[in-house]
């Protein structure tokens, strides 16, 4: 079925005299949550030394599946086996003891603790402090992932934090290593270094279960791919033998909708940012002299790995943080000292990345969430008194125009699925007909259908003559939407270049390459 790139004759006697080339097997796994069938009859197997991809959209059930393997979630039905033995870990400790290691998507690290302390917490019987530090240095050097055991994790970059997680797993000598969307925080070059490490591990016989929705990296690096859709396995294939388009079709279940970019013409300069400098937010990066101009009818794409100043940039543009005079202007009017309300009145609107708790209040109804940013521009308040009827009808208008699936405007925002809430949040800003709109990660964690609708709505808004800034980690999305592209790296924004003819590799270089991590891997 699947062909291994690092062909290994790694066979194991399982005690019954039967040799098997199989390390891990799942049979008929099922798991339900109230209202959701996260996994349904999932079966697949992984061989030693194989890099096996789990491919699927957000919400396809990949995370639930690996949590069952790692002992964080117990399956409702089905069986697992590891190395021929039944595998039913009661907790992650038991999973680790039987040889399963996991690197989480959102790092499970402790900021205030040192690298060595973080690693000790991930081991069940860590050696004494001095020994542990020595082993960390040894192992990290052997796999080209240099680390200083005494450093505090808070001071590490995203790539370095991931190394901590990987080294933590490697010290436990795992037979099966699970990696949950590991490249989502890495630049393309950093990802290459990670793959070199993974191949080295696979060559030594470690099986790797690799979760991703990025088709290209799976095609070029994985031996085998199990594709999940709505909690079910829809196929196990050799990804190298299929085109990205075929894989995407299996993943989504239909041909991807293409967006219509036609009918736009750049007009006069609408939004100007110049010399934006700000202090770093939580876990973020300070902006350093960021400047750009966006014209009417134009979409500027700003790419970069999260944590490089994206949060700070949208805060500076939305008015959550105010700046020195002359840093933000709309149609020539200086808005630098104005707060979010005044900027909205002027026509500069924003939609931050985090839907739950930033762009919307989960515990409030959709009607109340319409008041959140629409109060002034939509006339939902007069002399401070709220007009609930007007607010409700504005909410209904958003729901109808953006096909938000919900029982009604009285539903709590937190009760909506990610894609529906995102459509609501973006719709709320677009329907206010902004002069300029800034969005951060507009389709993060959203299913393909909703993502296409949101992208089209942004294109249409630009088509009506608004200036649009899209900040995103999804480079494909930026290349699809934007007229010009700029990279935000460590708080510095590169000069925007036309998107036409730009390749992913060029974009990767603009994103700052691998932050000097190539040097690190030479040692391996």
């Amino acid at each position, binding site marked *: 079925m699947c062909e291994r790139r690092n062909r290994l004759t790694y066979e194991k006697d399982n005690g019954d005299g039967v040799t098997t080339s199989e390390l891990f097997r799942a049979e008929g796994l099922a798991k339900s*949550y109230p209202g959701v069938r996260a996994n349904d009859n999932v079966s697949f197997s992984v061989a030693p030394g194989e890099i096996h991809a789990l491919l699927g959209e957000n919400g396809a059930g990949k995370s*639930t599946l690996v*949590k069952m393997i790692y*002992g*964080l*979630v117990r399956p409702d039905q089905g069986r697992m086996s590891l190395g021929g033995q039944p595998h039913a870990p009661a*907790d*992650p*400790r*038991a999973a*680790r003891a039987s040889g399963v290691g996991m690197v*989480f998507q959102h*790092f*499970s*690290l*402790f*900021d*205030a*603790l040192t690298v060595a*302390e973080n690693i*000790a*917490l*991930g081991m069940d019987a*860590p050696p004494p402090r001095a020994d542990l530090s020595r082993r960390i240095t040894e192992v990290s050097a052997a796999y080209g992932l240099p680390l200083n055991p005494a450093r505090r994790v*808070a001071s590490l970059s995203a790539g370095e934090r991931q190394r901590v997680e990987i080294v933590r797993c490697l010290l436990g000598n795992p037979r099966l290593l699970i990696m949950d969307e590991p490249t989502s925080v890495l630049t393309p070059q950093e990802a290459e270094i990670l793959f070199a490490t993974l191949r080295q591990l696979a060559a030594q016989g470690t099986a790797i279960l690799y979760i991703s929705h990025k088709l290209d990296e799976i095609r070029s690096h994985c031996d085998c791919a199990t594709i999940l859709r709505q909690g079910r396995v829809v196929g196990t294939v050799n990804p190298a033998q299929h085109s990205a388009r075929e894989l995407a079709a299996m993943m989504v279940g239909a041909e991807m909708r293409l967006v219509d970019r036609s009918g736009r013409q750049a007009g006069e300069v609408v939004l100007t940012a110049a010399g934006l400098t700000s202090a770093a937010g939580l876990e973020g990066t300070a902006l350093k002299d960021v400047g750009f101009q966006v014209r009417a009818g134009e979409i500027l794409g700003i790419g970069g790995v999260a944590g490089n100043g994206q949060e700070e940039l949208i805060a500076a543009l939305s008015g959550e943080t105010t700046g020195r005079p002359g840093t933000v202007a709309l149609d020539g009017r200086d808005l630098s000292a104005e707060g979010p309300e005044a900027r909205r009145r002027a026509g500069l609107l924003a939609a931050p990345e985090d839907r739950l708790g930033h762009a919307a209040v989960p515990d409030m109804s959709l009607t109340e969430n319409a008041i959140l940013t629409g109060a002034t521009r939509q006339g939902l308040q007069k002399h401070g008194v709220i007009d609930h009827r007007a607010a409700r009808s504005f909410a209904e208008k958003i729901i109808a125009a953006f096909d938000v699936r919900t029982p009604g405007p009285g539903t709590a925002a937190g009760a909506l699925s990610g894609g529906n809430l995102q459509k609501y949040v973006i719709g709320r800003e677009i329907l206010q007909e902004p002069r300029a709109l800034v969005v951060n990660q507009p389709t993060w964690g959203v299913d393909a259908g909703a993502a296409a609708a949101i992208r089209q709505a942004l294109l249409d808004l630009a088509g009506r003559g608004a200036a649009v800034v899209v900040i995103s980690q999804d480079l494909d999305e930026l290349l699809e939407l934007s007229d010009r592209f700029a990279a935000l790296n460590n708080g510095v924004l590169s000069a925007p270049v036309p998107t036409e003819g730009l390749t992913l590799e060029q974009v990767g270089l603009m994103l700052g390459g691998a932050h000097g991590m190539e040097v690190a891997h030479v040692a391996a």
Partner: protein
Amino acid sequence: MMEWTTLLLLLSAATPILFAALGEAVAERSGVLNLGVEGMMITGALAGFAAAHATGSPMVGFVAGALAGAALSLIFAVLTQYLLTNQVATGLALTMFGLGLTAMFGKPYEGVKAPSMPGGPLGINWVIWLGLILVPVIWLVLNRTRPGLILRGVGENHEAAHALGYKVRGVRMAAIAIGGALAGIGGAYVSIATVLQWTEGMTAGAGWIALAIVVFAGWSPWGVLAGAWLFGGVTVLQLRLQAAGVAVPVQLLSMAPYLATIIVLVIISARHKYAGGGGTAPGSLGRPFHALR
């Protein structure tokens, strides 16, 4: 010998706050903000006094104080860890409940004298010694042992600790109980060793001062010791000034510990805010943990 007695007074005045703040530091390091210190202290003060009076042994009194403080803290622990109630409101409720309970059951002990405390080496009683020894012990446990590392991990990032398979709730229950026991000993010290009798509400805000000391200390046992001595010093100075008959009304002099708390809190908070510090507070402090899925 004036200096030596002053030093003794200072050590003695610092001891209740030292115990309570050490306990709270342990609880907060595990990510729990328990504002019920005052309630646990006053409960320890009454239980300790009653037991010491009944048995004639101050030692039994301190054990009883610790048990009572821990028992009361378990109400807070169950509510916040199992029923996921708001930690600020629950801590306040604990303080009100402790003050009420002791006012109710303390009536028979009013006007009764405590059994006398035995002295110790250098004329310093053994509870003061215990407090002083606890400082390095707690520091060592927190920073050099595995249980201490797990406790700090849980307090720093409870989701990550859970993902690694640690029992967040269990660790926090234990930390809250330790905090309660130490607050109870601190309270018992007030009634048995400082005031030598029981009066309603006698801890007079010491629990709240202990909470401020934990912030001042940057959540470190050594910092707690420094903070407790600072307040011991302020208290002794204030008493000395009263005794010397300074021309300032007694009521205004007795404000000193509270004003000093505010001043210290302001200086420390400002330093965290402007020096880019502030990273010393445990990452999950005060946040409820609910293991979903």
